[in-house]
């Protein structure tokens, strides 16, 4: 069992508060992703768990045991970085064997050989075992790095942007491989990334971090479908969610903002009636591009500003007054730049946020 819990973590570098009061409970055998922009504090959190940094406040537990005072080696975790950090003059076999030769561990040469063979087979590098690591491609090197982490059979894997240096195609392949590997091994894995696609596709759960604080924890579906604030809503999803402010008139059933005005469906009015709306009834609407559709009539008027043909679909960029909205539409639609269009929203998918705080407007009783 290797749950990892972090409570009240704080870490400062000089004047920079890297982490302010962060708490996390990661389950045994979970693939947990810490997602956030550069400088959010996600790597620092990972390094505190690894024992490479000391927090100035807060407790870190693995399998229920406080480990703050333990050295990095005693914690029985394995780290994989973006840089491969392999020994260039050694073979893949020697690189894999290296962590097992530590004096802290007592493995016989035969045990080492068996473990290396098993790890190599797991990450599919058996054919590379006798090659020097400086003769490998980027993808092969990262496989060796992961192999070197699993050879020790640690309680927890910690990975810091391990796929970032690879090209797009290899990243896509390794994503699926890594998720499959973690499931087969059944080892708790904490994965740090700034790439929302990696987080969505691999994580059992995602923790979104910004400015040293944890904003939301949830499954990929929860994070995408019920973002807690506009930061999470915009950070996750491509093309990005459309955000614009409107004045609501729930009684009259309208949402208005100069160029964008649309009637509220009765179910939307019913939903809004349960939400704690700001006194001035101004809200920030969030609508994902797949929930904006072009309609023949009765929609909001706009003009096509741009059309991106992505093969599987078209991203239409629609100008409506000062707003630019993105809509994903079927690949066989014919649209041209400057063409007037009308659009509407799938209203049960609309998100409503407080324009001042950016927080999602939720029913007072609903859990976050």
């Amino acid at each position, binding site marked *: 069992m290797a749950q990892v819990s972090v409570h009240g973590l704080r870490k400062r570098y000089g004047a920079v508060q890297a982490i302010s009061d962060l708490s996390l409970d990661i389950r045994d055998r979970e693939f947990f992703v810490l997602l956030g*922009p550069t400088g959010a504090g996600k790597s620092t959190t990972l390094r505190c768990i690894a024992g490479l940094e000391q927090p100035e406040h807060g407790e870190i537990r693995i399998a229920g045991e406080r480990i703050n005072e333990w050295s990095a080696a005693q914690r029985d975790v394995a780290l994989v970085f973006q840089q491969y950090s392999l020994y260039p003059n050694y073979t893949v076999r020697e690189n894999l064997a290296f962590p097992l030769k530590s004096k802290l561990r007592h493995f016989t040469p035969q045990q080492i050989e068996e473990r290396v063979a098993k790890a190599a087979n797991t990450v599919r590098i058996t054919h590379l075992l006798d090659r020097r690591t400086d003769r490998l491609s980027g993808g092969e090197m990262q496989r060796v790095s992961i192999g070197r982490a699993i050879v020790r059979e640690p309680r927890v894997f910690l990975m810091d942007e391990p796929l970032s240096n690879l*090209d*797009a*195609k290899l990243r*896509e*392949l390794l*994503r*699926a491989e890594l*998720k*499959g590997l973690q*499931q087969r091994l059944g080892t708790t894995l904490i994965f740090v990334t700034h790439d*929302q*696609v990696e987080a*969505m*596709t*691999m994580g059992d759960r995602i923790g979104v971090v910004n400015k040293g604080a944890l904003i939301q924890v949830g499954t*990929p*579906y929860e994070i*995408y479908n019920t973002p807690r604030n506009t930061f999470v809503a*915009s950070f*996750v*999803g*491509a*093309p*990005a969610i459309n955000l614009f402010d409107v004045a609501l008139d729930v009684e009259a059933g309208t949402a208005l903002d100069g160029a964008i005005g649309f009637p509220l469906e009765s179910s939307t009015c019913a939903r809004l009636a349960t939400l704690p709306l700001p006194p001035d009834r101004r809200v920030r609407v969030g609508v*994902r*591009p*797949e929930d904006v559709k072009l309609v023949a009539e009765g929609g909001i008027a706009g003009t096509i*500003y*741009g059309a*991106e*043909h*992505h*093969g*599987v679909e078209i*991203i239409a*960029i629609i100008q409506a007054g000062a707003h*630019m909205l*993105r809509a*994903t539409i079927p*690949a066989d639609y014919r649209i041209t*730049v400057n063409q007037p269009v009308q659009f509407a929203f799938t209203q049960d998918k609309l998100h409503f946020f407080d324009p001042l705080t950016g927080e999602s407007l939720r029913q007072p009783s609903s859990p976050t």
Partner: protein
Amino acid sequence: MADIEIIDAEKRFGANHVIRKLNLHIAHGEFVVLLGPSGCGKTTTLRALAGLESIDSGEIRIGGRRVDQLPPQQRDTAFVFQLYSLYPHLTSFDNIAFPLRAANMPEAQVKTEVNAVAKVLRIEHLLKKRPSALAGGDMQRVTIGRALVRRPEAMLMDEPIGALDAKLREEMRAELRRLHIENDSTTVYVTHDQVEAMSMADKIGVMHDGLLQQYDSPTKVYDEPANLFVAQFVGSPIMNVVDCHCETSSSGVTMQLDGMAAPLVLGARAAAKLRGLAAPDLALGIRPEAVHVARAATVGAVPAHVHLIEPMGAYDIVDMKVGTTPGAGATLRARTASQFVRRQGEPVWLTLDDARTHFFDKRSGFALRAGA
């Protein structure tokens, strides 16, 4: 009129053959993206157009005029690099005005020109600011403004938005495309990012190992890739490519994939691509959105099981293995509605969109075409 013509261009760096027999015609007003992995020759091609690199043999013509022997300043092209490369001590206005003043343009006209370009780029409010006070996207707009202000015959851009964050890149894609339309310019743009290429280009030139692989509209490159390299470089999620064994029998053309209990009879449009083919061992290519998944058996559907589910938000990518033996069988990925399948191991039934099957010769990598 600034059409660009590259004829039989060759370039070597020592033993490294970076451009091989390149022929490319770019019509006036076109937005052409040179796409490929690092080291494919795309940047060298762009630099050769600008005159920053010479070619060993061949010709380059811009607007009908042969320019390959001319120095960069006589070619009338403007180059935008990935780095912002603005003068830090000058305001945005002075940065944009720099190339005009260098050409001794009268100050009144400089002002008119800079303001005109600032309006197009929507950076009028930034003109008094220095680069250090600008956000990344704004800085890149100013850089583009400086390139545009000379009204060059051709705009050459080398990964200009690669360093920006995802959201800003999305916005800049639309802006650059728009700018190209409004300026009626000819643009050549280099990137390794297929999303940028697909979203902005009139035509994409896919390069690999110094060789032009295909030169076509984004839709053609996506729907009719010339070979395996193009097929798997363009599109995300990646096109499925799996080994297949095809045979012509009395019941028509059949295809066998790893894990299938019985061969699948292909529809007419797929069969047409295979007619009269000698080598039956081919690779099947099919895009994830052309693999249709059902949760109940239907006539002609192939049994498979769910291996992995990757949520993307707007949809899921589902990795499946053909057949019913856990973990065995050919892997096919499909794009499905979000949460359409719920768990790993779940049995599913697949149909392949007949019109969207691709077959590749495994040895040469070339795509087979109907009637060829």
